[in-house]
């Protein structure tokens, strides 16, 4: 099944009189269970495309369908609901809530989804074990290393059992060892749970984990390993 279907989308940023065409007609279909890398030079539109897929922003033209639902023209609340239920995010900066513990950060999406305390406890502990942080449950983010924080973010992204996880340069702020560990965990979770991953990167070592590589340049898809197009 198609988790993501993007049809000919454009995104034009307007700042004052300057127009930036960040995406200029991108079409892309991502199937359930893929582990796809979005690559391309800085400014090529990777982040913008992830934001469109992730319902954080809306395209200027074109259509976005997530898990069969057209999300192109949803309002703010509907987009928030969509993100909460179906999409997990991992950012380049380790996007945790500083006032919450590891446990509470992972629990947050479950709380928002109205799970019972028992469900939450089981799910959080299960995920913390999966990212090897069970012993850090009560630490605040500032007591964790960058790699640990990013693993918490992965656990949080997975918590509501989303169909899709979007990661924007998840290893860019990590050293090689930690970057590798994060990629290994993402790969493992992809294989074990079948959750679809789409991640933007320009790190060749990270690209090597991908089962499919989509290359962006100047807001268009230049190359897609799945279609074999050159």
């Amino acid at each position: 099944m198609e988790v993501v279907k993007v049809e000919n989308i454009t995104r034009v940023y307007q700042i004052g009189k300057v127009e930036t065409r960040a995406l200029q007609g991108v079409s892309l279909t991502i199937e359930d269970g893929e582990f796809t890398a979005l690559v391309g030079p800085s400014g090529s539109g990777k982040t913008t495309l992830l934001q469109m897929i992730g319902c954080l922003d809306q395209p200027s033209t074109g259509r976005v369908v997530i898990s069969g639902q057209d999300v192109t023209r949803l309002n703010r609340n509907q987009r928030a609901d969509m993100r909460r239920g179906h999409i997990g995010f991992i950012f380049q900066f380790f996007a945790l809530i500083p006032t919450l513990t590891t446990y509470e950060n992972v629990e947050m999406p479950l709380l928002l989804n109205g799970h019972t305390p028992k469900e939450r406890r089981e799910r959080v502990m299960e995920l913390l074990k999966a990212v090897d942080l069970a012993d850090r449950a009560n630490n605040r983010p500032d007591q964790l290393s960058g790699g640990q924080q990013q693993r918490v973010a992965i656990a949080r992204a997975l918590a509501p059992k989303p169909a899709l996880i979007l990661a924007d340069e998840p290893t860019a702020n990590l050293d090689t060892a930690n970057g590798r560990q994060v990629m290994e965990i993402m790969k493992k979770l992809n294989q074990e749970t079948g959750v679809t991953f789409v991640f933007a990167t320009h790190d060749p070592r990270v690209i090597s984990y991908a089962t499919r590589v989509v290359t962006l340049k100047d807001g268009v898809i230049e190359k897609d390993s799945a279609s074999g197009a050159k």
Partner: protein
Amino acid sequence: MLQIFKMAFRDLGRNRRRTFFSALAVAIGLALLMLMASVINGEMGNAIQSSILLQSGHIQVRSVSFDENKSSLKWEDLVASPDEIAAKVAAFPQVKAATPRLFASGFLSTGDESTGVKIYGIDPNSVANDPYRMGLLSGNFLTADDREGLLIGKPAADKLHLQVGDTVGLSVNTSNGDVQEQVFTVRGIYSTNTYAFDVSTILMPLAKAQAITQTENHASTIFILLKNETDTDSVAAALQGLNLDVLTWRDMNQLIVEFETMANSYIGFFYLIILAITASVIVNTLIMSVYERTREIGILSAVGMRGSRILGLFLAESAFLAVGGVILGVILGWGAVQLFNINGFYIGNMGLSGFLVGNTIRAQLMLDDIVNLSVLTFIVTLLAGLYPAVTASRLEPVAALRAEK
């Protein structure tokens, strides 16, 4: 929901200094409101109580045609056989004292100075006249059969350079319109700590006042003090059958009551200013905290938190600030009132002219005011938090996530 409160609480803990100072701003605002309200209460309560004790009593019984402003001494304007009526009234169990008084006007003169005065003819033995007896600074109090003595207030004595034992000329308007003159001896100098009264009132025994004004067995009024102010209306109703005018302290102190209303609308204006300052401190603090946490708001939004919850989070923060500020404010306000009352506020003879205001104002904190002002401060703080909270809830997640840390 619980999570929101937990987060809000911890967010406040992140910048304790700032949290403390914004709660302090709320607290100081509330403390000022409380102090102002209690000073006004104190002053108004004081004005009414002074007036009741010295001038109006709780109830007075007068001739229907008596006109206070003219202090007429015509017999038909006066109460006949006042002692009998006073005795009847005094028999009521709620009544503490009932005593006849005669009011006249005249001129007091020494060799080179003179001043207009109100003459109170009083029964020296009645407990209703204790405020004068207790206010005696020097000399002796009046005796009922004294025919040449009077008491004079301290400011008037100073003005005329009179001492106990000095003689002074008094000319008095009489019942039939002419003027009687006699030389009196100053028996004592009194002070009620109420300048407006003391400067213009001299006291003499009722019998002498009746004699000099030729009003024979008549009085201007029966002055009645009750054991309990709340019995005013029932006693007044019981006195209706006398065929005389029955006035309560409320009727007689209308000016003060009106003034109190006016003072309250002025004070409302000051309240507004204080609350506006408090609110602007809160708005600034919270706006700053929204901008500092822009990226975090983006994360919450990315995780799927709706705008309404983000709004709730920031409102919860201002609610915590408001609760903390109000609690601290009640303590500060109470303390401020205690401090104020160590010395009171000495206004001396600046008392509002025409009003009997004691020379020292003491603040009086009322439970009503504490509750109302606390609720008001709480609401204003919450309202002040609304704007920053709305700003936070409207942030676009994309913009928030891109924000510099």
